[in-house]
């Protein structure tokens, strides 16, 4: 149970026994408004799933619908019959997400650790060096030209990993978490003769699991949902991550047809493009939605810690 839920149970309304009229009115408003908001957040997802399961004819004549009246799995059967490109995109995304998240966690925690050590004289100087990049930037153009024309990262997997690997916000969050670890632990390790890197790797990392979990989730979500770096830097179809592949397919029906045929589909009947779009959306979103209940708990804890710490 997260701190939020624990404390929320202290809410005064529940401890005061008899419910008064104002509380009843408030409860009616509260339950009503929250339920409506929750439904508004959920219904669009239902719409996409339902559309992906509706026959193409029905969509074209009656539009996308919340409940499939003319049930069909044609879109999915086409999608899974010729899945080569989709699988390729999945592999790119999974690889980039795992690699980027691990590398990002390592770099973020190592950087934050050095910055969190009070006996490091230059820590404030370095902190400002990092922080300043959030205040001012050269803008998209020099950044883009540097990566494409000077570092030659276009159409390499580096272009998908490197831009997201470090984030000043995560460094600050991690640093403030590490600041809460008692200095005595570091001191005693030093007396035992441990070097600074060893203290970081063997003592600090195991103690910072909650912070690592939170930042790891943020990183993983950013990598999984990234399409922007692909939009800028990837034209090689073998390197397209899932979200960018979805973006391309949604905007380009001819591309979708070509992809299906290229994968070996003999297109005798019309491809159900509309339901296929939605089926692709479902397949591209699926893993996030499956991992979501688990992931959300950590997110809430991480956010709560962050908010309390300011």
């Amino acid at each position, binding site marked *: 149970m997260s*701190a939020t839920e624990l404390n929320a149970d202290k809410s005064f309304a529940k401890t005061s026994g008899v419910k008064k009229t104002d509380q009843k009115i408030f409860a009616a408003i509260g339950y009503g408004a929250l339920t409506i908001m929750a439904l508004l*957040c959920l219904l669009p997802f239902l719409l996409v799933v339902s559309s992906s399961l509706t026959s193409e004819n029905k969509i074209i004549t009656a539009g996308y619908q919340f409940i499939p009246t003319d049930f069909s799995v044609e879109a999915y059967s086409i999608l899974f019959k010729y899945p080569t490109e989709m699988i390729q995109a999945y592999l790119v995304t999974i690889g980039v997400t795992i690699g980027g998240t691990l590398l990002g966690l390592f770099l973020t925690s190592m950087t934050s650790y*050095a910055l969190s050590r009070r006996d490091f004289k230059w820590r404030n100087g370095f902190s400002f060096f990092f922080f300043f*990049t959030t205040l001012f930037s050269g*803008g998209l*153009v*020099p950044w883009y030209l540097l990566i494409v024309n000077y570092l030659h990262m276009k159409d390499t997997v580096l272009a998908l990993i490197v831009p997201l690997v470090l984030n000043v916000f995560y460094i600050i969050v991690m640093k403030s978490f590490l600041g809460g670890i008692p200095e005595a632990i570091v001191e005693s390790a030093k007396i035992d003769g441990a070097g600074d890197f060893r203290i970081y790797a063997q003592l600090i990392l195991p103690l910072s699991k909650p912070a690592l979990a939170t930042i790891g989730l943020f990183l993983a979500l950013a990598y999984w949902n990234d399409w922007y770096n692909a939009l800028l830097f990837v034209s090689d179809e073998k390197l397209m991550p899932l979200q960018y592949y979805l973006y391309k397919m949604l905007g380009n029906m001819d591309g979708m047809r070509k992809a299906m045929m290229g994968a070996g589909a003999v297109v005798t009947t019309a491809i159900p493009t509309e339901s296929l*779009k939605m089926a692709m959306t479902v397949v591209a979103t699926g893993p996030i939605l499956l991992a979501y209940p688990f992931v959300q708990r950590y997110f809430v804890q991480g956010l709560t810690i962050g908010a309390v710490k*300011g």
Partner: protein
Amino acid sequence: MRLRSFWHDVKKYRMFLLMLTPAVVFYLLFAYIPMAGIVIAFKRYDYAGGIFGSAWNGLDNFRFFFDSGNAWQVTRNTALYNVAFIVVNNALQIFAAILLFEVGGKWFRKIIQSSLFLPYFISWVVVGAIAYNLLNYDIGTVNAMLRGLGMEPVDIYNTPAYWPFLLVLVSAWKGLGYGTVMYLAAITSIDTEMYEAAEIDGANIFQRILKVTIPNLYPTIIILVLLAVGNIFRGDFGMFYNMVGNNGMLFSATDVIDTFVFRSLITSNDIGMSAAAGVFQSVLGFATIMAVNYAVRRYDKDRALF
């Protein structure tokens, strides 16, 4: 002597310096060198000359950007959208957090919070697909409903007037869960004795929220709002690009600095003007952040950014 003590420190802190090296290289390369690349905005960029070898052309790129008529439009759109996002999103998030704190049992709260948080986890590409599903002229759900009710369908993707509302709605939708959790955390840290005192004084639940909860949220609200104000000239590229794309019909209502810079760079390959617009954005952004920081310092020194 001074130099010697410097080298002494370098030696003393060599492990920390080593640990910081990857991050320092990263930010030098991807943040500080691009800052130097601002000179592109004052040059006529050609690929042979590159960033530093191209010929200077003074303020021509800026003049072109301002004369094109786009400068005012994209700046205004960026700022107005962000103001609307700040007001609407924070109001809704505070509203949801207060309700979530006051009503419901553990399960109700869990289900609602999970539902509100769901949109935060999906990519803007998927949001774009959902929007298409809802708003498409021929087969979108909104128009299917309108036709079902015997009303005229609306051509949303060709009508700029709808977009300010749609984009504010989408932004609120996607950010609701995240912000609600932040505010809920702030509410749960309010001292319960204050509520008990209010109860003894005979406050009803509405008075309690207005007189205890909301005033106690002021510090959080002010910080979150001011941080957002600091970014008022930055558009959420992912949202605008996936909702609107390159639909020129809508630019009058939807084009922000970020989409304009992107289009000038990638689509029309106008590197000089794109860089000039980017510099204009960075300078405006920097000035706002400095102003905001000054304001926060005056309000509460400990909460200032720097």
